[in-house]
């Protein structure tokens, strides 16, 4: 594997800028807030600048679009506003080459999240929020930004596209199974959970002693693609309800169970459905469990998900996917991370009296090294190796570098 020039350039750039003007950046970080004289309004503007480079040996894995190496810059701005003790709002603005790398190769500017939250009691037992925001399903969302994520890519469950599409119904089981032998169609196919799933709707969540809970009512399934996350693009005719219940028996542990159910087919698929069936007849049902443990220099996360997607003219396409991820701080600045991911697919009738696995089983190991130059500069390198249990390999090796400025 050759080392791509873009990665070397990125590393050289990181080394040059990391040591310079830290005080200025700290001042900038401290200055980007406003507080009214009475203290009732407080607004903080913060952000992340990411410079990413991906070297891909075959076809891009996961939710990396296109067919070649790529450079992916991204600006994320977060406006956090507090109104008194009870109201909070968040707006996340992004400028990049698509929410998923190169999904909009010519560039894109959008508001990824906006929400208004009401917290009637200061102990946080109940919060009510509405808007467009990350799903409550699972635990990965809480570390999905580039500063918190030890890796550059998401876990398999949140980015590996399967042969199920939301845009049309397959004509027959054979047509559905034939998708296994072609490269990922990322503009059509769906993962189990599409990244942070910034869908639109409302949620209620809170924490009571050792327990935390969340329930959301959203306009689209957790597998849905970003183009339908906005309420103006897809309404609540076929909503998805997701929930998570968490237990923190001690500071070191957090356990959670999640569930989600809702229609995943888009209106474009309606014309291709069997007679007498509607979009609401085909649901995605997902159950998940997550665990978090941390102590001293160690952090470990694990999630396991079981998903059932009802496929027209085929039946239930079941899949099991999980990952175990660990991060260890080698020095105050340097950390290493390893993640093992796997996805196994169930069988469906093949239309000829037998059954077959509906998609390719897949295993992937992600490794990463990260270095925090300062509180505002971070660099990461990731190497991933994927193996699909089939003659066809979507992707095998991925090398990625990411440099992040946080302010």
């Amino acid at each position, binding site marked *: 594997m050759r080392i791509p020039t873009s990665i070397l350039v990125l590393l050289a750039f990181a080394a040059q800028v990391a040591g310079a003007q830290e005080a200025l950046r700290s001042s900038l970080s401290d200055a980007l*807030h406003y507080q009214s004289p009475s203290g009732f309004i*407080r607004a903080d503007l913060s952000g992340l600048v990411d410079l990413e480079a991906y070297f891909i040996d075959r076809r891009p894995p996961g939710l990396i679009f296109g067919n070649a190496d790529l450079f992916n810059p991204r600006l994320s701005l977060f406006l956090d506003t507090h109104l008194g003790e009870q109201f*909070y709002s968040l707006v996340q603005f992004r400028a990049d080459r698509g929410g998923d790398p190169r999904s909009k190769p010519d560039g894109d500017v959008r508001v990824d999240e906006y929400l208004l939250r009401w917290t009637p009691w200061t102990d946080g037992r109940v919060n009510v929020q509405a808007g467009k925001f990350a799903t409550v399903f699972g635990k990965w969302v*809480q570390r999905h930004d580039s500063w918190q994520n030890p890796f550059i890519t998401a876990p398999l469950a949140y980015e590996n596209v399967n042969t199920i599409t939301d845009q049309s119904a397959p004509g027959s089981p054979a047509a559905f199974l034939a998708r296994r032998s072609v490269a990922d169609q990322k503009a059509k196919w769906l993962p189990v959970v599409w990244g942070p799933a910034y869908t639109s709707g409302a949620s209620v969540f*809170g924490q009571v002693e050792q327990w935390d809970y969340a329930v959301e009512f959203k306009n689209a399934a957790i597998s849905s693609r970003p183009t339908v996350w906005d309420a103006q693009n897809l309404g609540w005719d076929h909503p998805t309800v997701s929930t998570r219940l968490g237990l923190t028996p001690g*500071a070191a542990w957090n356990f959670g169970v999640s569930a989600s159910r809702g229609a995943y087919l888009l209106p474009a698929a309606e014309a291709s459905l069997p007679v007498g069936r509607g979009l609401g007849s085909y649901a995605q049902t997902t159950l998940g469990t997550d665990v978090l443990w941390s*102590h001293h220099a160690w*952090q470990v996360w694990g999630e396991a998900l079981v998903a059932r997607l009802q496929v027209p003219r085929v039946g239930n396409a079941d899949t099991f996917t999980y990952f175990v991820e660990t991060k260890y701080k080698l020095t105050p600045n340097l950390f290493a991370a390893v993640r093992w991911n796997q996805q196994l697919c169930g069988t469906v009738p093949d239309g000829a009296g037998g059954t077959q696995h509906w998609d390719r089983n897949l295993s992937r190991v992600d490794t990463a090294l990260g270095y925090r130059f300062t*509180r505002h500069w971070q660099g990461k390198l990731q190497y991933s190796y994927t193996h699909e249990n089939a003659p066809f390999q979507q992707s095998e090796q991925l090398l990625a570098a990411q440099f992040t400025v946080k302010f």
Partner: protein
Amino acid sequence: MQASIIALVLALATGSVAAQVAASVEGTVALPKPAAPARLNARYAAQAGAWLPPEPPTAVVFLEGAPLPPDDRPATNVVQMVQKGMQFGPGLLAVRKGTRVEFPNADDFYHNVFSYSKAKRFDLGRFLKDEKAPAITFDQPGVVKLYCEIHEHMRGTVVVLETPYFVKTDTNGVYRLTGLPAGLFKLKAWIDEKNSFEQPVDLKPGTTARVNFPGSP
């Protein structure tokens, strides 16, 4: 035996004389208004845990250039900076080079302490209330800025000094520094990176000088 008694008497006499001729300095440091308390931006979870307001600003006043006392020894003491209510307490700590600082966690959830300062670079990882408090020996003079990676708003500072002549003001900026040698030295007041002052001070044996920062009395 006789020699020991003579040495003891001489030592006591010297100490007594030193105490009699020691100089003092007192005054006030103009402190900035308390910064607006930050808010936790809990974007993806409910806020957990009670939150105390940050400590009001204080300053460290220290004498620079003064000779060390004849009986000076390296610092071996242990002091604490507690993490409670998602704040460092005290938020500003002045210690002499060689002092060991413990960081007990008084909250029911994880805290972390790390610093990327040149004077001391460390990361204590995540530790609990019931654990033995992790500790760091500050063996280089300088300003060490402390943070918690879990609670980004938390700020702490350890000012590590070569000199044994230092004191922290109260929250009104009032200080009194005693037991100082006589002579002409620099008196410095450090509040934060953006606010520090220095003035010459002429210390006379047995008297108390008055120095206010900024400006003269």
